[in-house]
């Protein structure tokens, strides 16, 4: 296009040489709404509850909340997911479960969340943890 009507898009991040919109920029770098359920789910993962149903038990949140949250956190890179070791599952005569683990970014967001909601610390433990290492 000719110079007179240059496209004023957000794509290049600048408009007339200036950053687009400060508020918008902040929205961009904060990937998730840091709500209480988000914080709770991150906390549960950090405390070693690695499976969806276990996170529900730990947080008391319903499945319709926990799973979408897990998926969004995974999408934002705050949580990593993989499949459980096949041999373990076979031993218990059931298919392998999906396994979630908090990432370093996730830990930082969790800290922000804890600060925001002034969390006393521990999430209730439903039953003793059985730590399961990620498949390598």
């Amino acid at each position, binding site marked *: 296009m000719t110079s007179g009507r240059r496209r004023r898009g957000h794509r290049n991040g600048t408009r007339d040489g200036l950053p687009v919109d400060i508020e*918008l920029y902040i929205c961009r770098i904060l990937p998730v709404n840091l709500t209480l359920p988000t914080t709770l789910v991150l906390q549960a993962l950090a405390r070693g509850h690695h*499976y969806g*149903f276990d996170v529900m038990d730990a947080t008391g949140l319903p*499945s*319709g909340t926990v799973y979408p949250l897990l998926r969004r956190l995974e999408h934002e890179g705050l949580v990593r997911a993989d499949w459980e070791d096949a041999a373990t599952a076979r031993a*218990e005569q*059931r*298919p392998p479960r999906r396994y979630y683990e908090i990432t370093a970014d996730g830990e930082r967001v969790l800290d922000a969340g804890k600060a925001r909601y002034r969390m006393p610390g521990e999430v209730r433990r439903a039953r003793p943890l059985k730590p399961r290492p990620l498949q390598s």
Partner: protein
Amino acid sequence: MTGRADPVALRLCLAIVRLGARIVPAPQREVWTREWDAELRHRWSQRVRMSRAGELRLVRRTFGSLVDAAWIRRQLTLDADAVHDLVHGVRLLGKTPGFTAVTLFVLATGIGAATAIASLADALLVRPLPLPGADRVMTIWERNTATGIGREDVAPGNAIDWVGRTRSFSAIAAVEPWSLDYTAPGGDPEVLYAARVTAGFFDVLGLPMLHGRSFAPAEFTRGNDKVVVLSHALFIRRFAGDTSIVGRAIELDHQPVTVVGIMRPGLELRLFEGRREPGLYAPKYYEDFESRVRASGYWNVIARLREDVTPASAAQELSVLSSQLARDFPRTNRTIEAEVVPLRDHLAGSLRRLLPLLLGASALLLLVACANAANLLLARGVTRAREFAVRQALGAGRGRLIRQMLTESLMFAAGGGALGLLLAAAALRAIAGLRPLDVAGADRIPLDARVLAVTIGVSALAAVAAGLVPALQLSRPRASAVLREGASTPRARRAPNALVVVEVSLALLLAVGAGLLIRSLREIQRVDPGFARGQVFSLQVFAWDRNDTPAKRSAFFTASVESLRAQPGVIAAGAVSAMPFSGANINVRSAMAVDGRPPAAAGEDALIYTTIVAGDYFPAMRIPLVGGRLLDARDRDGSRLAAVVSRSAARKFWPGADPIGAKVSIRFNGRPLAAEVVGVVGDARHEALDRAARPELFLAHAQMPFGSMTFVVRCQPGAAVTLRDLQRRIWAIDPQQAFYETATIESMVSRTLVGRQFSVFLLTAFGVAALVLASAGLYGVLSFSTSQRTREFGVRLALGARPRDIVSMVLREGLRLAAAGILVGVIAAAWLTRLLAGLLFGVTPTDLPTFVTVIAAIVTVSLVSCYVPARRALRADPIAAVRTP
């Protein structure tokens, strides 16, 4: 029972997951299902530790998989935002029910009117007729250049010349209305409406028979013509669709006649008066006398254009032929022209002229409705400026905001479209209820798939039109500020204001048109037809077959009239050959010469209608005697032929003189007659209330025993006489006599008004719709502007303005717009109502009372629609208004 071992709970859970899997988009489905499956089976493998409550919890938890699945779908598919927008839109609309209702109503009105008219136009002007090459099928009529009256039935002599001497048509045929008596086994004698058609008729239609064959050439000759083709309707109604009837003989007019073919269904030609379709077709050969009958028209001509001939050049050929005939037969044909009318135009009847106007009006109405809805949406958009600003600040892109607005508009369009469809269906039902007789098939205009497509297209267009403007305005960077600052400036309000002016002027234009038609209808209903309408029955008979001599006919009608008069409750009974307002008249017309005067000069119209009357026809109709005496027992066979003339005949032939005692000569049924005028009676209108009475000469039945007569019976008010009683009295004299048409004279008169009532209905509906739109438009514009000026009003109130001042300020603003609209509308109406001139009766296109009434109505409606926003302006809180920055 070991309920725990029962895998029902697990099976239920897995079923729920399988259901959820259907919601999840295909690429994610497998992983998603595996994850939920694994979790469930893991929990189940530990069920030993699970209570029944735990099982229930597991099931409940599994239901969450559906939420999860829906969430994934929303995240990963394109319809996610649409779902969100939709939910958001529904929630918002529920919060403003008044606004929602008004906007839906506006859209429904526009869409409904446009759809109804589009259906009508589609059915009447676009939809193919059930004939191959129907565009080349023409109907040909007589037109009287002296009176300007066209679409008249054709005199046999002219029809024979047109059929024999034109070259423009690949097929051309004359059609003669006919009737045949038929008595079904065990039934009353009935008259079957029939048509006798000349050889080209079925070639004009171009349709093969459904069963059997059409007529062979040899069957168009005397003695070989005892064959008929049945219409499909009669085939079903009388012969129960039994195809074995083809080739069999049925008894018609007490003679065996062979059925040779059945026509295809759906054919409607509407050639005959009363618009009855013939049930039977019989071959027609010309009688010797018919080529000499040129003054009395009762035939029809239908033709198919040759491939290489245009309607205009066919009309040209017929015009040349007409002038030749005018030279050859100056007494009868001097003012007669042929009028070529395409079959489709003929079938559209009285709507042919109105429909294009209405199509234009409905398109305009739809545009106005869309613009109106846009105006309302914009007005609401301002109140949502804050929401949009917040959403923009939170990162919503312009496209996203536009899509949100468009989704809401589409919801309006869908709702408005659905309501509009209902409205259109109701309108078409109302149209069917009016049964406009001269419009083919108007009683069953379907709302079919094509019309539905039209509606959906219209709704979608409406949505884009109504949604794009506010969406573009609101989604501009810093839209709220722009709106807050700019919306109340005169420049920004110019477009909506102009729209309101257009709406008001359109409403005025349509309302004036409707008003003029309503007044015309009332004027027509007030016209004195020349006879008294109430409590009169008419029964038409063709009594030639068994009364084949003049003496027998005279005896039959004398006895019949006597018997009818003897019926308790009957005041007067008579009979007439040409019944006013009847569907099938024997209109005999000839030139009359007055003895002692030179014969009519070329160029002088000396035609008069000759009518035969029997018994107390004039008293039964309450046609007054003006001078001399009525026809009575003195006028019997053998005595001098006596005649009574109508007042307009007296004026025409004896201007300023007394006709009584004058000797006249006329022709009747091809015979020259000499008669003496013995009386003058009042005029009676014949075809319609808005057509002047015709000059008429009456002869006594005893002296001219005619077979085609209509009994006229006047009863005492409130007498319990039925048509059936009267029919039984005739059957007592001749059990085989069938009745062609039986009706009350009231119904015959009102039948002629149906077409006019139909136009009134259509234009009134349009006027009301336009008025509704205009008031909604005014309301929208004023709501918009008052919502903009809340702060100003608050300040004014705080500074001591009285509430009355605020109300009158808002009212002034609205009424200024209305006044501008009225001014434009009056100018447009004064100019455009001329187009209606042909439909008006007794009022001028610039009728002052109509204009004044309509203007008063529009001012009232405007006041009401301005008052609501004005009241709202009063609610401005002075303190809040002053405090807000």
